[in-house]
């Protein structure tokens, strides 16, 4: 794999989302952050390519909205 695939690929998107949210139940913000970090590292290793990882980092940064409600 040499390029980040951003086409819809998840077999069960609702379950994927639910699982991610559920994983953070009862965690403090610090614990959540560390869980996410472990998760990212596991998935990055599964992908196995720093090139793809860096494309994903760029895509994630680019997708951020300048939220008009920021600070609400």
């Amino acid at each position, binding site marked *: 794999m040499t390029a980040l695939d951003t086409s819809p690929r998840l077999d069960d998107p609702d379950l994927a989302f639910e699982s991610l949210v559920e994983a953070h139940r009862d965690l403090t913000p610090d614990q959540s*952050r*560390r869980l996410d*970090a*472990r998760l*990212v*590292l*596991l998935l990055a*290793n599964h992908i196995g390519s720093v090139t793809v990882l860096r494309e994903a980092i760029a895509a994630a940064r680019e997708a951020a909205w300048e939220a008009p409600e920021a600070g609400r």
Partner: protein
Amino acid sequence: MAAFEPPHYPFRPATDDGARHRVVVAGGGLVGLTAALDLARRGQPVVVLDDDDTVSTGSRAICFAKRTLEIYDRLGIGGAIRDKGTTWNTGRVYFGEREVYGFDLLPERGHRNPAFVNLQQYYVEHWLVEACLATGLVDLRWKHKVAGIVNGADGVRLAVETPAGNYSLTADWLLACDGARSLVRELLGLAFVGKVFRDRFLIADVVMHADFPAERRFWFEPPFHRGGSVLLHRQADDVWRIDFQLGWDADPEVEREPERVRARVRAMLGPAIPFELEWVSIYTFRCRRIEKFRHGRTIFLGDAAHQVSPFGARGGNGGVQDADNLGWKLDAVIRGEAPATLLDTYDIERIPATDENILNSTRSTDFITPKNEAARAYRDAVLELAARHDFARPLVNSGRLSRPAVLHNSPLSTPDEAPWADGAPLGAAAPDAPLDNGFLLDRTDPNGFTLLVFGEGAPGGVPGVKRVNVPVASVAAERYGAGTGNAVLLRPDQHVAARWRRCDPAAIGHARDRALGRVA
């Protein structure tokens, strides 16, 4: 009780005001003495100016890497370092209460030298001084301090201060080895650019009789030092070096107080182990370098040229490799066997090596001192995962330990004519291997080029190049990726300059000329 009593070398007033010398070394520390010894063993007279009259004090370089030991074997003091120092190949990393993993740096056998020998820098400097004196060619001038410099096109004029008055001398070549606070660098107005890490470290040398194994131990956030990391190394004479990470807000004056340091060490060792403090200091680490190392007839080596944080042991080891790279080149230029432009390849080869050291030590320091909460979360996540999953272990960075630089794309290397996929690449430091009941590197010419010839009946020699025959069915042949009739040319600093599947003497001669910068 440390066994080492620092020697005090005699001050002698200068009697040669206005004299001209071939090579002057500013700074008689680890790197300056190594450079002086290297040149003297090639037959060059060297004057060394040092503002002090003794060896280094306290905790400086402690981990002498395999490549450095090979260089010191070539210079004749490798055995003393191995005999006195503590050999180690293994290490252990802890996070919180738990061991995360252990590692072995040199699983491969058949090298004279281990991955590392730990030894206090003052021992090595002391033996370098003795070895320099034994050559009869090194004029060691203690308490002679460089005070002024004119870096001229035809020579470097130096003003020197001594307790008996000032004098001047002129050097054909000045090697600036005067450390991180280099006065030569300052006098020439050269910018020393890089970054400072916003953290403070307490370095304590402790004398104790403990039966911990001789291995590197690194703790992230241990119970005995919450909120920081701790590094433990064993040295000679039952001296142990401990680095405590204190954080940016720590007050150096308070942290240096012996009672406070003792409390930290006691918390680490437990109440049962008696110890004595031998040395305490507080550091802030920096990674930086000057833009170019060669400035006409003044050439910078070691910390005067570049500075790194200590994680990875890349300061002293990097400096010794500078001296290794420059010595034979300067000798060849002085002898008229190579053009002065050969010295430009010192920059071409050592600046990428320096940048590699800076990159590695910067990344290690960033792992040990996370810059923000996200960085800390990733760091801790790596450590948590590493205890359970092999994949995360290579992500743990408590120091990427010094490895010799591969001089990729050096203009001194002759590109391969035939494909050569296996073994040490062009520009690599020659791998050691068992050979004839000894070791291959011991058979190389310490002052010249060496041709390794693999198998019987391979091509003949070239005048001035030492030929070493290597059997084909051997570890050595494997490490060079070589078969019958192949040949590998090693430079005087034991780096791979050229190799041939089939070669003729003309090709060998041409490759040697190229490595001397005579031809492109």
